[in-house]
């Protein structure tokens, strides 16, 4: 019995000492980790599966660690950018075990595919950051997205219009998409030669992608450029904002639900230039100063399955009346009155489906009415018999569905369909188009450095009874860590504008071929980009001698962009230059000439700095455009469009001061466009009866000064909770 107890005691002692005796034998594991046996990989996490033991490789890819484990194990190696490596390792006998780890496969997250060389990505997630929504707000001197984009290369300084004129294209060659859905009438309607502002506030969008050419097959019907806007998702907290200014007043409310999955809200604003016009009369004689009423509402919900639903509605009314001297008859004044009503709704849903598919769907409705009355005013009285009424009504229904999936590990495939029903009416002329588009596109890594985007887009428009197929191609080659060299080609089709379709539908699509080569360098807070392009326009619409597709044209040029947030502490600046050589034969042009909306040289400089001591951000922007051609009827046909306007100079100033108004976050904003008051002439209107008589087309307000106070009321109780802690 005692023997048994003693055996038990001995055993017990032995057991207690077990860890210090049997496992005390240490084994050293060492080795290297490389990519394909050549490039040593630092920062690789090496671990002996199921134990604490392991190490991290040094700069030369070496690692070493000690272990007390024994037997067959798995050695696991992990590092960002590569697929994990697991290999068996035998730990017995030897005091040193050598392991050689070779990574062979790069892990590709398709977010990193950078074959969009021409996209100016304005979101800050993406590496292609050029501007953020905040940049838009501090760059534009009028709160317009398009004005901020005009400081980027490729956009022309066409001050008499609110549209974007890109690389020798007209304003209608740039189309705007919100969450993938086309927006007609992105800007308010305005009388001719008067710039109109955007109907959408820049703060609505988290991302602004401005493509100046060669854009994806996911978009179409724009010969020159696509502006792709993405709306905000869920905010961090509920808030309310009040805007007060001599020219406008507005209020918006954004309410986040308790579970933080739903946000809803809306806003209204009213803009009137009445007071402003009294203090600083405009260059035109307003009989009704411009007034705008805007309203919007939205609901966004994140579902438990990860799906995101967004609904958005935006409506507006505007009204303007002005007198313009009739150049043909002395003493006669044309009174123009324009009333606009518009509505835009957008419903989108996106979610992940089974087996790696992602789905995005959208529905939208667009409605716009312009009522224009033009009457002659003689000796102060309106001549009723001279009244011309024009009622333009357009409506657009559209549906879109896109699915995408990661295929072959290195390729993302997008397939989509768009259906639109467009109705365009002027007085009694009306046409209706059913438009169908389908596209497929792949974005892939061919090798570690070479990426490609290949797309094909098919379109059919019932009004033209014609279909088209447009190929799109882009190749990117990464040179070193920050450089990207890329080339792209694409064909882009666009339906003729509505005023031609009212006359005849026996015409076809206009199209353009883009060839682009670019190089960009993206380092820490510094971006450099140089781009050369050639664009060939085919089948442009001519109105004389007959209305047909007999026009053509070309545009070629070079653009340089440099942005730097680093060299000068606290200062963010960018410089851009565009050289553009373009000629076209279209509309009533008798010969192939440089069109009136193209400046040969355009340059701009933007500089911003936040002065933290006084909580003030000051921004300056300067834009130069060389003289643009205009038609002078006094010249012979051979000299068509040979005159040039004076060069364009515009210095913009923006000051934003952060402050608190009764504890509410507030920003006091002062912006001035054309601060130096340079005379800007965009062109001339000539009298048809007396060609020696002309009128310069100038900005409506020069300079224009805006002062406004934006007050944000945080509708949350954070402060109270903190107070209860003290």
């Amino acid at each position, binding site marked *: *019995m005692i023997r*048994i*107890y003693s055996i*038990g005691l001995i*055993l*017990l002692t032995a*057991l*207690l000492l*077990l*860890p210090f005796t049997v496992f005390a034998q240490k084994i050293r594991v060492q080795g290297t980790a490389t990519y394909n046996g050549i490039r040593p990989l630092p*920062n690789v*996490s090496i*671990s002996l599966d*199921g*134990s*604490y*033991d*392991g*190490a*991290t490789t*040094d700069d030369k890819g070496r690692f070493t660690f000690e272990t007390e484990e024994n037997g067959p194990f798995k050695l696991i190696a992990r590092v*960002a950018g590569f697929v994990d490596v697991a290999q068996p390792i035998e730990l017995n006998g030897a005091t040193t075990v050598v392991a050689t780890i070779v990574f062979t496969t790069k892990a590709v997250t398709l977010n990193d595919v950078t074959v969009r060389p021409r996209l100016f990505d304005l979101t*800050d*997630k993406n*590496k292609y*950051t050029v501007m*953020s*929504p*905040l*940049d838009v707000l501090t760059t534009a001197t009028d709160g317009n997205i398009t004005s901020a984009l005009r400081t980027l290369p490729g956009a022309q300084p066409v001050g008499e219009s609110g549209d974007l004129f890109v690389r020798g294209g007209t304003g209608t060659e740039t189309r705007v998409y919100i969450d993938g859905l086309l927006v007609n009438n992105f800007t308010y309607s305005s009388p001719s030669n008067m710039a109109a502002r955007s109907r959408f506030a820049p703060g609505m969008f988290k991302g602004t992608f401005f493509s100046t050419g060669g854009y994806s097959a996911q978009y179409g019907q724009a010969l020159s450029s696509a502006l792709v806007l993405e709306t905000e998702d869920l905010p*961090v*907290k509920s808030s309310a904002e009040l805007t007060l200014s001599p020219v406008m007043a507005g209020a918006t409310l954004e309410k986040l639900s308790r579970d933080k999955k739903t946000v809803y809200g809306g806003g209204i604003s009213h803009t009137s230039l009445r007071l402003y016009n009294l203090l600083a009369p405009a260059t035109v004689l307003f009989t009704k100063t411009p007034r705008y009423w805007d309203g919007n509402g939205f609901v966004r919900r994140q579902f438990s399955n990860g799906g995101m639903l967004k609904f958005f509605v935006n409506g507006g009314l505007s009204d303007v009346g002005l007198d313009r001297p009739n150049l043909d008859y002395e003493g006669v004044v044309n009174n123009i009155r324009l009333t606009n009503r518009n509505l835009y709704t957008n419903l989108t849903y996106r979610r992940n489906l089974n087996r790696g598919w992602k789905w995005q769907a959208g529905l939208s409705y667009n409605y716009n009415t312009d009522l224009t009355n033009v009457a002659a005013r003689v000796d102060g009285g309106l001549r009723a018999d001279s009244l011309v009424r024009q009622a333009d009504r357009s409506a657009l229904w559209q549906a879109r569905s896109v699915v995408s999936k990661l295929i072959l590990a290195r390729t993302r495939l997008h397939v989509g369909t768009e259906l639109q029903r467009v109705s365009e009416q002027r007085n009694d002329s009306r046409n209706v188009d059913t438009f169908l588009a389908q596209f497929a596109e792949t974005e892939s890594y061919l090798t570690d450095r070479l990426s490609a985007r290949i797309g094909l887009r098919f379109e059919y428009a019932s009004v033209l009874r014609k279909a088209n197929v447009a190929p799109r191609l882009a190749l990117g080659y990464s040179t070193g860590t920050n450089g990207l060299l890329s080339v792209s080609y694409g064909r882009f089709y666009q339906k003729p504008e509505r005023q031609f379709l009212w006359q005849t539908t026996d015409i076809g699509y206009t199209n353009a071929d883009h060839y682009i080569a670019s190089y960009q360098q*993206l380092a*820490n*807070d510094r971006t450099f980009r140089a781009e050369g392009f050639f664009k060939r326009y085919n089948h442009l619409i001519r109105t004389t001698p007959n209305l047909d597709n007999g026009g053509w044209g070309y545009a070629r040029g070079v653009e340089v962009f440099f942005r730097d947030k680093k060299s000068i502490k606290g200062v*963010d600046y960018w410089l851009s230059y565009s050289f553009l050589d373009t000629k076209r034969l279209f509309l009533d042009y008798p010969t192939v000439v440089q069109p009136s909306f193209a400046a040969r040289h355009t340059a701009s400089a933007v500089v911003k700095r*936040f002065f*933290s001591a006084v*909580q003030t*951000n000051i921004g300056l922007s300067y834009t130069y455009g060389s003289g643009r051609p205009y038609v002078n009827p006094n010249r012979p046909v051979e000299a068509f469009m040979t005159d040039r306007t004076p060069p364009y100079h515009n210095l913009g100033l923006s000051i934003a001061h*952060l*402050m*608190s*108004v009764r*504890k*509410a*976050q*507030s920003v006091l904003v002062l912006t001035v466009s054309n601060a130096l008051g340079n005379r800007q002439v965009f062109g001339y209107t000539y009298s048809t009866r007396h060609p020696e008589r002309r009128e310069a087309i100038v900005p409506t307000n020069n300079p224009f000064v805006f002062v406004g106070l934006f007050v944000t009321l945080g509708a949350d109780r*954070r402060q109270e*909770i*903190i107070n209860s*802690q*003290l």
Partner: protein
Amino acid sequence: MKTLVITLISLVLLAHATLAQSDKYQKAMEKNLAQFDTARTVSSLLGLMNTFERIGSVEKAQWLPYYYAGMCAMNLANKEKDKNQIDSWADKAESFASRADSLSPNNSEISCLKATIHFARINVDFMSRGPKYSALGAEALQQALKQNPNNPRAMVVLAQLKRSAPEGFGGDKAMACQLAAKAARIFEQTPTGNPINPKWGQNSAQALLKKCEEPTAQK
């Protein structure tokens, strides 16, 4: 008798194995935390992050290894000079924080870690990210203080936020000083428990308090 001995031995064996395991965990954590307290370089933080991750992958019920791996990644995000890389460290830190969160839900320390990760993201672009991520960070701190009203670390981080944010955007220098003082008091009064529990923050509280006492701070 024989069975009794065998049972006894088995019991001892089992208890011993468990004890040895928890002892091993405690020792490994203590050893690595000693390094963590003095880790300043990127390579040492990275090594520690990987080590804590390895411990976490073995100790499937412990939240602290992932918490510290997250702290290392968050510090790496703050040390990162390449602004394009900050988010990848912050993403890593966030994935560790959520793993810790799943092992220990409603933990004030983890909420506080999440707040510091949000603040790290602001460095990518102060002007455009400041409003969003400081609000997210403040919210995580609020959560941390709701979960444990006496978490001195959450108080210190909140005090730093209150001190640096502009007035009107949640900044309040007087409140920052009050919070720092309260945090310092809690640090002094709280007995040192298990040395592997979170204990950082005392120096920051003292430093902040010192700034509060300087006359220039009383603007």
